């Protein structure tokens, strides 16, 4: 009974909402806002034209590069800053000042530095994920219980061994949460960047569908795709968190 509810209830609410949406479109007699069926048809058409796949591919490629670079750079740097408190005190204020600058505010600079190309959005995504990751790693290292470090030293670990066998495992849970949150922001920024700075990707799909002919069916379709792909990534991160906790 319980497990039936678990699947039945969400399906039911989804059906009710879709029905309401459909009815609202009919009742208001709008011919701009699409009905659910129109959205499904729109996505179908795009999928046939293979344009959709290249858009999805472009979006994912940008996020992977920007976010990947932030991970490769941000985590070691964050660990370093956490490990050497003096260095941390010196650099932290700069991070704290750069961090709240909305990554999208960098757009004009990104465009003069990198031109209208793939690099500009990748740079924005990089910025958007870098700061949360830096801070997560830095805070993580600072909060490793001194007892763990003492125990590690007591067993004669060298600093690199200490990093690998004590510090890294100790900060991993926090780091994974930070990775997930950073990805959420990266995904958000990606869409905005694509709306402004390039001419491909899911963000572009949305803005272009609106500007070129008020194709709101494609707008809503694009939004749903963004939601579903974002959800897939989010689920992956949560899986990883659960695995790390189970170990």
């Amino acid at each position, binding site marked *: 009974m319980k497990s039936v509810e678990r699947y039945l209830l969400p399906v039911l609410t989804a059906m009710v909402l879709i029905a309401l949406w459909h009815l609202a479109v009919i009742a208001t007699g709008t011919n701009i806002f699409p009905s659910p069926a129109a959205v499904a048809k729109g996505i179908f058409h795009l999928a046939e034209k293979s344009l959709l796949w290249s858009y999805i591919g472009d979006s994912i490629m940008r996020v992977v590069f920007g976010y990947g670079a932030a991970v490769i750079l941000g985590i070691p740097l964050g660990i370093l800053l956490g490990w050497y408190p003096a260095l941390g005190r010196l650099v932290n204020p700069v991070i*704290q000042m750069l961090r*709240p600058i909305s990554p999208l*505010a960098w757009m004009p*600079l990104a465009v003069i530095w990198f031109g209208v190309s793939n690099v500009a959005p990748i740079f924005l995504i990089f910025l958007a994920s870098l700061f949360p990751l830096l801070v997560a790693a830095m805070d993580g290292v600072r909060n490793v219980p001194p007892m763990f470090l003492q125990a590690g030293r007591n067993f004669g670990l060298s600093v690199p061994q200490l990093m690998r066998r004590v510090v890294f495992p100790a900060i991993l849970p926090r780091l994974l949460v930070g990775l997930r949150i950073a990805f959420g922001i990266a*995904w958000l920024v990606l869409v*905005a960047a694509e709306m402004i700075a390039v001419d491909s990707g899911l963000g572009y799909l949305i803005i272009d569908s609106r500007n070129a002919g008020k194709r*709101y069916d494609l707008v809503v379709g694009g939004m749903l795709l963004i939601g579903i792909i974002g959800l897939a990534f989010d689920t992956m991160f949560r899986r990883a968190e659960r695995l790390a906790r189970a170990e």
Partner: protein
Amino acid sequence: MRRLVPFLGVALAVFAWHLAVVMTGTRLVPSPWAAVRAIGELAQKGLLLKYIVASLFRVTWGYFLALLLAIPFGIALGTWRRGELAVNPLIQVLRPISPLAWIPIAILWFGVGDLSAVFLIFLASFFPLTVTAMQAVHNIETIHLSAGTNFGLSRPQLLVRVILPAILPQLVVGMRLALGVAWLVVVAAEMIAVNSGLGFLIVDARNAGDRYDLVVAGMILIGAIGVVLDLLMRRLETLDFVRWGYASE
């Protein structure tokens, strides 16, 4: 000496920026001094205050509206299992849709203007806040709920005297994170959907004559206000009625 270190860090960074501009001889990226002058220019034209107020106004409305709706909604879902089963999957699908992806729809429904921006900020804060409140209710110690009922509290009393105080620490953290996202979104929304505010300042400065000093001035203002908002929210986290919730100090 120790207290000077952070300032030293900032000073070094600004100096490096200055050097980089001078050495590359670029005319596109302004020096720190040019950026400061640009802020002065904005102040003189009366735009500084106007844009800051415009941005803060939008964030305030969108964010508080979201607080008002999301927290009761999240608590309701957290205490009512069936409701959560029914609604949670939908929240999870809607949540990762970048609030900015709603821009075309926001414009369609609300036109180009404040209302659109407020709507986007509302969306940006609503989902994270709902999820935070819901999770926080799940994380309440069963023992505390049992103790509450044992002392004869009715449902409404339980809500006020146990559930609310118990979730507050997590809620306050969630509120800080949501405000950060709201601030990020307002800038982006203003770049696309309205004609005032700090985000608009940035695109406008660039489009109307490549005034990169104004661009950077806008960025500095955005950063500074972001810092202030974050600090204010962190203040909340030091108050007695939530401090217990943050493990070992």
